[in-house]
């Protein structure tokens, strides 16, 4: 039983680490081809951790096995080039590494496995604490399935309601992880052997990781996608400019769009020029001008280019932009924004 407990603990640690790593990897890469409506590179999340749970019986005792593997997978659906589950309006994934659903499922799995492992250990080794263990186990188990269910729902329906549900389920994590932390501290205080104390210390670390993960997930879920915001701003700008076509109309639309973006704050900077891997002044021969930069100008995390009428963000233009972006940030997503969809 101790063996199983430790295996589950290992899986829990691995799950939490996988989640934290997935959230910290930047920048990612995504070249969008507007002609085909496809991403030109594989979603970086297409190669990642696979969690495969299975149930079997050993001497009439249930054994839950979760295998971990790094392999090619259709992490964001069957289309390798899919991004944000084909819904940039309701999802936010500037790094290209995960969506809300992934966060929720991973966090839910990690918390659930942790809770189940702890409760199982308490059931088997400490009969006197069975009520405490059972309550934590049930709570964690319910949290897992709730988070997984809501996560899948928000992924499947990709609606504003899905995001709201995501916030609610992540909040469950916010509430349960402090309780898990309290229990880990209780275990630490009452530990009698060095091994128990060491395990309790690991539990404290896991609970803290869980708390951090929940906060990160909540932050991600609560922030609407930048593309969504900019599409709405572009639509408003085009309404104000009115109907038209040609370069003069395009300039007017860009001016209005820039004016609207200025009011957004949120680390969105309009009209930035780059030349030779650094910001430069507008008009320098050979420099490129992008409509919106997300993040610090010297260390951008995404570029957005407004297109109106029949104009499109071509692969040649994307390549040109990339050649002038600061070193270390050349592979950030470059996304076409349209207000006339």
């Amino acid at each position, binding site marked *: 039983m101790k063996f199983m407990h430790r295996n589950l603990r290992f899986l829990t640690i691995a799950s939490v680490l996988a989640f934290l790593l997935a959230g910290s990897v930047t920048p990612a890469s995504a070249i969008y081809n507007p002609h085909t409506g496809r991403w030109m590179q594989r979603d970086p999340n297409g190669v990642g951790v696979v969690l495969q749970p299975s149930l079997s019986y050993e001497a009439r005792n249930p054994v839950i096995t979760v295998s971990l593997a790094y392999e090619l997978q259709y992490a964001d659906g069957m289309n390798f080039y899919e991004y944000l589950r084909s819904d940039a309006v309701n999802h936010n994934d500037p790094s290209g590494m995960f969506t809300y659903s992934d966060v929720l499922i991973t966090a839910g799995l990690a918390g659930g496995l942790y809770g189940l492992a702890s409760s199982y250990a308490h059931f088997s080794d400490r009969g006197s604490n069975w009520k405490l263990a059972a309550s934590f186990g049930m709570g964690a188990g319910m949290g897992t399935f709730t988070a997984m269910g809501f996560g899948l729902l928000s992924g499947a329906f990709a609606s504003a309601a899905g995001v709201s549900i995501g916030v609610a389920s992540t909040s469950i994590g916010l509430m349960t992880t402090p309780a898990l932390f309290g229990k880990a501290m209780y275990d630490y205080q009452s530990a009698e052997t060095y091994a128990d104390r060491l395990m309790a210390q690991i539990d404290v670390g896991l609970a803290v990781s869980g708390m951090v993960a929940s906060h990160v997930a909540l932050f991600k879920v609560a922030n609407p996608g930048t593309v969504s915001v900019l599409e709405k701003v572009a639509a408003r700008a085009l309404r104000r400019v009115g109907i038209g076509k040609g370069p003069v109309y395009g*300039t007017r639309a*860009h*001016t209005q769009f*820039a*004016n609207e*973006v*200025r009011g*957004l*704050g949120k680390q*969105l*900077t*309009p*009209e930035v*020029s780059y*030349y*030779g*891997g*650094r*910001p*430069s*002044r*507008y*008009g*320098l*021969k050979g420099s490129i001008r992008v409509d919106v930069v997300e993040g*610090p*100008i*010297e*260390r951008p995390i995404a570029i957005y280019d407004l297109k109106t009428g029949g104009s499109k963000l071509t692969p040649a233009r994307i390549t040109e932009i990339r*050649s002038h972006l*600061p*070193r*270390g*940030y050349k592979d950030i997503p470059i996304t076409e924004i349209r207000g006339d969809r």
Partner: protein
Amino acid sequence: MTDRRFESLARKHLLPKMPDFCVSRYLLFVLPLHYIIRGYCFEGSSDPNGFYVWAFVQPLFVPDRGVSFVIGNRLGLILGQTCGAWSLTADNEEVVMADVWGYMQREGRIILDKFQSLRAFAKNAINRRTNPHSPYPPEMVAYAAVLLGDVRLARKMFDRLEWTLRDQNDREPYENDILKRARLVRETLERDRGEAVGIMNKWREETAANLKLTRFLAPLPGSS
């Protein structure tokens, strides 16, 4: 907005309040002009009446075709309050320029005051906001160290630059140029520091000429 319009606005509304500064086209910068230009740069917008203002510091001893903002930021972004853009109408010139001056005092000075000397430049050019992958900051600091006679710092920065651009297949053409000129300065430094300083003095004049600032260059200490 035209460069002439920027110059006129700066002369009328900003220069009287900034005695140490000088205006040339879209640049408002501190005098005397030795090795580093530090000041403000007006930048146009797609809006014909709109503009941005950058607080920036640029070493003249690094060859450059124009103004670049490796060190600096747009006013309004430095303290993260707004995205710093102004638009002039027929009757708001006074108000807008007073606002710009306010931002220069609140935000611009945060940057400019850190780079009052070549030594301060070598010390502060690389900080927590610097892009750690960019070859420009180590190049700038390496050359500044050569001018200061700090050979140890110069070697350290040249090594850092080589490490930053170590992947030959990942280099853009301009990065090859950076590496080429850095290697030239390093080789010259190892042979004769005076000669290396001479190279940078030549580059200083070239960059100043590209920025159309030759007439503002101050004589270097020790030169007749």
